[in-house]
């Protein structure tokens, strides 16, 4: 059959507008909370809007993905449409790559250019006159303006939790691939076993990451407001952690679908897309481990 003949155009759908409204309430509510936080007011309406928006978003995600799963299970999708999905997911991951690239770019600029300039080295070393006592180190613990930006006692040791996390995440990528191979071979029992292992590894990673933040805040005084090292550290690891969490939710959904008997050996795009996402998150972690923790 020529796959061009029946490209599936969905019926009019309420989900996009529900999503736009949900996002508006979520961000609007968050904006109100932050707006009033600056003024020292506890904003009840902001919290209500935020919770309402978040609830709408959860409703939207379950409803929209539910609708798509139903359409997919009723074989409405042509081969051409599944190519569209694949390309769409690939370009989405590319946009995520660029999002992280921006933060890695910031890290590069700060470490290689602006912090040495502040300490009097390099082409723009004139900046040294701002804080004549400042010396450049990395990780930067003594900030130029130490009254505004606190001084942490130290940084996270890469060879403890981060190393364990690296091993966890890399192994989870391997077990996920093994699950994928099992799916292609039609061995349903093996898939379930590997999925459980993958999920355990993923959730353990998130848990360890949280414990690492607690250690940073409570024992090292390494907080968001302790200068540029902490800023880049928390933003890079924080966004990565958020992505791991999203990946865990995606893989949990895939696990539930596998339990329900979804997916066939040659048609399991949702599983593949989640796996791509997981591998992407894994690669970002390897870069993080090297550039943020080790060097």
């Amino acid at each position, binding site marked *: 059959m020529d796959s*061009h*003949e029946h*490209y599936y*155009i*969905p*019926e*009019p*759908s*309420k*989900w*996009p*507008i529900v*999503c*736009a409204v949900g*996002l*508006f309430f979520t*961000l*609007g509510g*968050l*904006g109100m909370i*932050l*707006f009033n936080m*600056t*003024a020292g007011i506890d904003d009840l309406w902001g919290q209500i809007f935020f919770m309402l928006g978040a609830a709408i978003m959860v409703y939207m995600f379950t409803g929209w993905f539910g609708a798509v799963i139903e359409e997919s299970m009723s074989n409405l999708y042509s081969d051409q449409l599944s190519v*569209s999905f694949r*390309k*769409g997911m690939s*370009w*989405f991951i590319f*946009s995520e790559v*660029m*999002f992280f*690239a*921006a933060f890695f*770019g910031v890290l590069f*600029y*700060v470490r290689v250019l*602006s912090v040495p*300039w*502040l300490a009097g080295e*390099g*082409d*723009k070393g004139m*900046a040294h006159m*701002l804080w004549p006592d400042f010396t450049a180190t990395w990780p*930067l613990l003594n*900030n*130029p*303006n130490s009254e505004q*930006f606190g001084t942490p006692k130290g940084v996270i040791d890469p060879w403890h939790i981060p190393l364990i996390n690296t091993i966890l995440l890399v192994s989870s990528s391997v077990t996920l691939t093994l699950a994928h191979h099992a799916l292609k071979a039609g061995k349903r029992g093996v898939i379930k076993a590997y999925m459980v292992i993958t999920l355990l590894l993923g959730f353990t990673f998130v848990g360890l990451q949280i414990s690492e933040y607690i250690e940073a805040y409570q024992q090292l005084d390494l907080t*968001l*407001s*302790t*200068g*540029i*090292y*902490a*800023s*880049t550290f928390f*933003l890079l690891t924080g966004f990565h952690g958020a992505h791991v969490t999203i990946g865990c939710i995606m893989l949990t959904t895939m696990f539930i679908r596998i339990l329900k008997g979804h997916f066939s050996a040659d048609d399991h795009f949702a599983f593949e897309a989640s796996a791509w996402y997981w591998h992407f998150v894994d690669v970002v972690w390897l870069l993080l481990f090297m550039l943020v923790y080790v060097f």
Partner: protein
Amino acid sequence: MSTQATDMVHDEHDDHGPAKGIGRWLFSTNHKDIGTMYLVFSLVMLFIGGSMAFVVRAELFQPGLQLVEPEFFNQMITMHGLIMVFGAVMPAFVGLANWMLPMMIGAPDMALPRLNNLSFWLLPFAFTMMIGTLFMDGGGPNFGWTFYAPLSTTYAPPSVTFFIFAIHMMGASSIMGAINVIVTIMNMRAPGMTYFKMPMFCWTWLITAFLLIAVMPVLAGVVTMMLMDIHFGTAFFDAGGGGDPVLFQHVFWFFGHPEVYIMILPSFGVVSHVIPAFSRKKLFGYNSMVYAIIAIAILSFVVWAHHMFTVGMPFAGELFFMYTTMLIAIPTGVKIFNWISTMFRGSMTFETPMLYSIGFVILFTIGGLSGIMLALAPVDMVYQDTYFVVAHFHYVLVPGAIFGIFAAVYFWLPKWTGKMYDEGLAKLHFWVSFIGLNLTFFPMHFVGLAGMPRRIPDYPLQFADFNMVVSLGAFLFGASQLIFVYVLIKTLRSGEKAEQLPWDGAEGLEWTLPTPAPYHSFPTPPKVD
């Protein structure tokens, strides 16, 4: 190209018309309806952003402070820029892409119709949030559309938080829209339509979509860092914590420079359709045009710091960004000569789309040439932040992006609506716009070279005459857009019936469809030879 396409649109499969009532628009999965919403939204934003420019020009009509407080003047300047860039120009191009891409490549619809509707509906909410900041305590964004830190962080009004979230929503909308466009072009082309047989508008949008996906996440990153600096005490743009305010500019312009090509490339595509049609010749050099677009897109990633020559960069950086910027003149020149060579010895007629396209070629070249002047780092020290810069980017954006949009609307309006517009009134719209915009923006070169700074509500007496001319031109240009609205309404209400091929030189799959174009463009793909 086959004519069987016209027979197939009444195939029983998928041949249901639009839904009734408001639901047709709220829940739409149809590329034409979503395209229409984008275009109408963009027109509304054009008038809102334009009225803010009116406030600015009214204040600058005479020296001294007459109408508005400087604080409010800053907000108008900022919102004018933001609304025109993110609300008027970009949605208009996405609207054109929605309407034209499936028709041009022989597809039934966009590849991901629900995502398409989501990308549209995020915009009204995002702009409600952004324009709402004007009514908050402390006023709206007042730091210019480039929102440099620390003006936009340490010294920003509290409403900046909502501005940041509005930018996040617009960015999400753009990324999703771009993913949809890129997937449509890569996966939905009719059998036989290879990349190098694609219409030029598709090519320009393919590259534009790539640029959008590459740089909108960077914009999201930079506003997120602002948010963190403002509310959570991070030090990205604060040298006291080891950060750097200049870092903001680097990240912003890494987004910002490809962004200006995002706003012009689709216009290049439109003009590459209109000029061959009314010259009754093929485009002079299709391949060179494609390669020029690709070259411009690649170069756009390595020129960003030419916006920052005066900010303090290592000397090697200044040289690098100066030379790469000047390289852009080469592919741009290829395009300009391409259009001129297409017209050379053609049997030309001058209907409104052609007038806009010729206006585009001439005036965009003026903007491009002042761009080369600005690219020279040593003299940019003098031009920086004067009205010369304002003249430059308005010459590339108004007769560039906006004239391209007008050309596209007049060119394809008969196909969209099935009705012809009033040629006389449309020509009047062109000529009044043309005169108005040159009166507005040409004298800005002179006051800029004489040293008048941008974004300041007052100026010395020596600039008074030119500023009065500029303001009068701006009012004329603004008023001429009312003619455009009248032409649109008149076309819809009482336009004469348009033929299937209203322009005898026009080529492309979209003209093989009946007029007005059917609700679902090509249920079965046409064969392309």
